[in-house]
Structures are given as structure tokens and as C-alpha cells.
């Protein structure tokens, strides 16, 4: 069976490795622990995770309503701008604390990850 499979190119292997590393980083989301050495960053991570959680909930609701046609043009524009600015703010604050996007998450044990 394997004899009929052409080998991958080097750049394809590099691309696959990068993707697997990205997924491994997502899978190893740590539980939240307030590090005594870096309390501000730990608190920022927790707060931003919760803000992002709420933002995603609001976005899903907005998309459902947009699909269902229950948002007027004015409402669509207003909600879209609000969500866009909230996302920019989360990204900006995360960058200030040296946090990557995949760090804005919580491992809830057997319940899985928050985001």
C-alpha cells in the first residue's frame, strides 16, 4: 500500500511540522495558576480569557441572528463594529502582556477546554 504513496516534499514536511506544533500547543493548555513571580500576567491571562469567551458567545449569537435575518442593517453594522473593536482590544492587551492567542484558554479537566 505504501509503495503507491509519493513522498512528501521538504517544504510540505516543514508545513506539517508547524501545524502539528501549533496543535500540540493548543492541546497542552495549562490550568490557570497564579504565578507569584508574574501575578499581573497570570491575572491578565485569566481576565482576557473570560473576556474572549464572552466575545465569542456574543459573536456566535450575532452570526445566528445575521443568518436568520433578524438584524437590521444598522444593527448589523453596530454589532459588527463593537465585536471588531472588542477583538482588537483583546489582541492589544494580550500583546502588552506577552500573551499568544492560544494562551487565552482554560483547561477544565474532563470537561475539555473553555474555548
Amino acid at each position: 500500500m505504501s509503495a503507491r504513496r509519493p513522498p512528501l516534499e521538504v517544504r510540505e514536511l516543514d508545513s506539517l511540522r508547524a501545524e502539528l506544533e501549533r496543535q500540540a500547543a493548543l492541546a497542552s493548555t495549562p490550568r490557570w495558576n497564579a504565578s507569584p513571580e508574574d501575578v499581573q500576567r497570570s491575572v491578565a491571562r485569566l481576565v482576557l480569557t473570560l473576556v474572549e469567551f464572552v466575545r465569542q458567545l456574543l459573536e456566535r449569537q450575532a452570526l445566528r441572528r445575521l443568518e436568520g435575518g433578524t438584524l437590521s442593517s444598522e444593527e448589523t453594522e453596530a454589532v459588527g463594529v463593537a465585536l471588531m473593536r472588542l477583538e482588537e482590544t483583546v489582541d492589544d492587551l494580550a500583546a502588552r502582556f506577552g500573551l499568544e492567542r492560544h494562551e487565552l484558554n482554560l483547561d477544565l479537566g474532563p470537561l475539555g477546554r473553555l474555548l
Partner: protein
Amino acid sequence: MSSVYLYAILSGAPSCETGSGVCAEPLRTVAFGGLVALVGDVTQLPPASAMTLRAQDAVLRRLAAALDAVLPVRYGTLLADDAALAEALESRRPQLAEALRRVAGCEQMTLRLWGDAPAVTPPAAAPTEAGPGTRYLTGRLEAQARAGHVPELAPLRAGLGDLVREERAERHDRPPLLATVQHLVPRGAGSRYVETVHAVRDELRPWRVSVTGPWLPYAFGEDAA
């Protein structure tokens, strides 16, 4: 103090020996509410690595040969004790039972799509005079619809026909890796699957595909439902 390490949910108690796990601990099964969990008692779990993941895969593959369905659980799922295990299973019993039914008699083939750029898709439906907020929301809607959609594989889907029971697709769009598609196929159909992919390879150009498998149905567990 030891914890209960959950390896998989099984379609029943295996007729063969359960053997030992990744920490060389003896494995045992726990039956609860119609579900059978494969567990080991461990004091410390080795960190996830290629070696430990392969070791866990080998444990499950050996048992899969004697069972109709094995639903692998995410590596590193530790529970305090059997009571915590029972609680975790109870909270997801219908979803786990459904996932077991889904993977019964099946294995997973993994297809990766390669190319310099994804297929061109029609522009978002936002009117040209729309403001930034509307364009943002419309773009999100489009991204959501596109997330599990791999139109580049249309010629292959026609060729695979009813060989594929279920599909899970994830777009990456980070060239050259464009997408990963998992197919649930009947056990033993792997060779036919590879031959079909090979037969339509020219029709897929300019995109290229690579196939790995057969695997245990890692992408079709309860989390993927």
C-alpha cells in the same frame, strides 16, 4: 497516590487479555451505564511525546482487533478515582454511546491537501457600500461556512462514493498545507481508499494529496461530534 488514567471507551469487554498500559501498569475495564472504559492506575503519567503517543496507540490497536469499536480518549485524561470516572461518563453517556455507534466496524484514513493557494471562493456577500462592522460580521460568517469545506477535493469525493461513512475536515490555509480531512471507512477498506485517491490524483491538480492510515478513529470521538 494513584489516579485513574482513561485510555478509551470500548464497545464491550474485550475477549483477549487487556495487557499493560503506557506506564507498564495492568489495564482493567470499568463498566458503567452500558459503557465500558479501559483504564489503568498510574501515579504519574509521562509527558506527551511521539514515543508515548505511539505506545498508547499500540495498546489500543491491540484491543481494537478484538472489538467492534474503540473510542480513543485524549492523551493525558486523568481522573481522581473510579467515582470521578463514573461521574465523567454519566455526564456524557448519550454522546459517547452515539460516538461508539458511529465508529463501530470502522477505521480512519487521513488525507492532507497541499498546494500553493486554496481554491478561489466567491467574495463575501456584503454589499459594496457596507460599513466596516457589516464587512467584519459577513467575513466571519463566510469563514465559519468555509471552515469545514474543502471544495478542492470534489473529484475525489465522487470517486470514494459510499466508501466514506463520515468526514471531518479542517482548513489550515497555511501553504503548502491547506487542509486535513479525516475519513471514516469500513475496516479493511484502506487499500481500496488509497487506490481510489491514486486514481484521481491527476484530476486534483494543481493540488496534491497525501494519505496516511489506517488509524484508530481519533477524529471521530465524542469531542468531534
